[in-house]
């Protein structure tokens, strides 16, 4: 007999039993896939383990080693570059382009179709394309030389001080393409009446921008920051494909550093270092959560002001 205390329908619509049956598969699977790996990672980070045999407990040794590892600074430097690119270039540039796109442009759909194209292609494929653009015998240097800029041509992927930025270019490119679409939709959603009212009152373009456009899309801009900033810490596929962390291990991002510890290329002699890799993964998670909470606070304050 079904308990019908919470149900008001003969059919048992919305009964506790039904709710449990509908929730259990999804929530159960998610709870498992979320809790088990993260807890296991904490345990692995306290061990020395190659993935074969059983893990050996070593206490905080992995974290001590991390602090002494020069790659730590490299990865933090790469994270700082990614974050500043997102804040200073990607989001503002995407907003500017989306603003132009929203100016009743002809062929808007065509622009949108092609702007979004990079988002549907696997990053590994995009990375290989960009690698062939940036390598020394590649397209970019050829183009520079053919317009007489031989002095600018260089080894984009192996010159120190340059490579660290080069591997972030594809991220910038695809980031702008993604946020254009988001911002364009937000801008198109602003009611035309607001602008009509403003122009009757004699507002100029700048005033419309400051008093109508920006306040209307600010919430979406903050949402974009919520996505973009923690995302900037997870840069992986482009440096992985384009430089493998080189030259002299100077283009390691946190995610790539982690991955190169837990994955060894088939046929290579070095064993994976699961313990150390897990410690790095925890550092990544801590930075990610910290950054997300920071941006979320920003969002709440913004809502409170409204």
């Amino acid at each position, binding site marked *: 007999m079904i308990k019908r205390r919470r149900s008001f329908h003969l059919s048992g619509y919305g009964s506790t039993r039904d709710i449990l049956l509908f929730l259990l598969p999804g929530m159960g699977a998610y709870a498992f896939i979320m809790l088990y790996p993260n807890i296991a*990672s904490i345990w692995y980070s306290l061990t020395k383990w190659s993935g074969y045999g059983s893990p050996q407990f070593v206490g905080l040794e992995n974290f001590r080693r991390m602090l002494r590892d020069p790659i730590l600074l490299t990865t933090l430097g790469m994270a700082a570059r990614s974050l500043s690119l997102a804040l200073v270039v990607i989001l503002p540039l995407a907003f500017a382009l989306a603003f132009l796109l929203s100016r009743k442009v002809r062929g808007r759909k065509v622009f949108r179709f092609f702007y979004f194209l990079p988002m549907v292609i696997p990053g590994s494929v995009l990375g290989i394309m960009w690698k062939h653009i940036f390598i020394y015998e590649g397209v970019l240097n050829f183009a520079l030389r053919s317009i007489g800029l031989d002095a600018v041509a260089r080894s984009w992927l192996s010159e120190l001080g340059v490579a660290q930025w080069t591997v972030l270019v594809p991220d910038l490119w695809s980031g702008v393409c993604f946020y254009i679409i988001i911002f364009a939709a937000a801008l198109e959603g602003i009611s035309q009446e607001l602008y009509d009212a403003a122009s009757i009152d004699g507002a100029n373009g700048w005033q419309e921008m400051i008093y109508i456009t920006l306040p209307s899309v600010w919430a979406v801009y903050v949402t974009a920051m919520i996505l973009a900033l923690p995302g900037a810490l997870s840069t992986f596929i482009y440096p992985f494909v384009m430089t493998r962390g080189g030259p002299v291990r100077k283009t390691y991002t946190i995610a790539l550093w982690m991955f190169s510890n837990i994955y060894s290329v088939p046929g290579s002699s070095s064993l994976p270092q699961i313990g150390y890799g897990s410690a790095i993964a925890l550092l990544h998670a801590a930075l990610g959560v910290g950054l997300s909470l920071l941006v979320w606070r920003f969002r709440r304050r913004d809502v409170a002001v409204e």
Partner: protein
Amino acid sequence: MTTAGVSLKAIKRLQVLDRSRWLISRGLVYAVLVAWLIIAVYPFAWVLTACLKEVDEYYLDPLGLPANPQWWHFAHAWKQMRIERYFFNSTFVSVASVIGILLLSASVAFVFARFGFRFKGVLWGFVMFSFLLPGTTSLFPLVVFAQKAGLYGSLWSLVIIYSAQSVPWNAFFLRSYMEGIPRELEEAAIMDGASTWQVFWRIIMPLSGPALATMGTFAFLWTWADVQLPIMLAKSDELFTVAVGTLFLTISGRGATDPTLVASGLLISIVPCLVVYALLQRYVVKGLTAGALKGI
């Protein structure tokens, strides 16, 4: 009104001025948009031109169009990549994952959208919590899980992990969509004695079609593109997905020295993504913007 005292002539002059300024600014708008269009598609143009060139020709001029198209490159790249194997693997993983993702998330979303129950807020908070975490911490433990569950060396490991991992994002999106479905229809059905199961399958799921299409498209593209998990879980190259296969294209064999073959392989590998995008584009853009406008 500020314009009240201005003469008719002055207004005319202003209009002419306005018109030419308008034309110039229009021109600038298009120039900038087209410039970004070229940047956005250039890497694809590279693939299209490079894949048909001869190697020597490519190194002499990597920018120009191919003089005599080398169509055999595709056949060669196809063979070298064992691409039919990878295509089979990727298609299986992506299609099965899309089904798993949609079923698991839609049932969760339905319950959160329609019913009140104890611990609802806490459970939803638990779902949202995953938005904070980057996935890196799970990677190796999931490999261990696959080994212990006897799934290592089977594509099902990917399907199961993807389906479970995507519950939060999809449930979040589908819940807000389902909350927008009017309740009148299901109330009529309940009067007629429909069960929860029947309401879910006969009313909620069909009416959620566009949202399911959006999330299904994203799930397909995401599982097709993922590299970290399939590379870790591939016991041998029998289990490579297309995305993993492309990574090895540049490392081994002729691909290491021949960009034209690499380009042909890349082009073949992205055909399914292009087809899915072309067919389901309106769901992609619409869904993305609906989600973003609501804000997280």
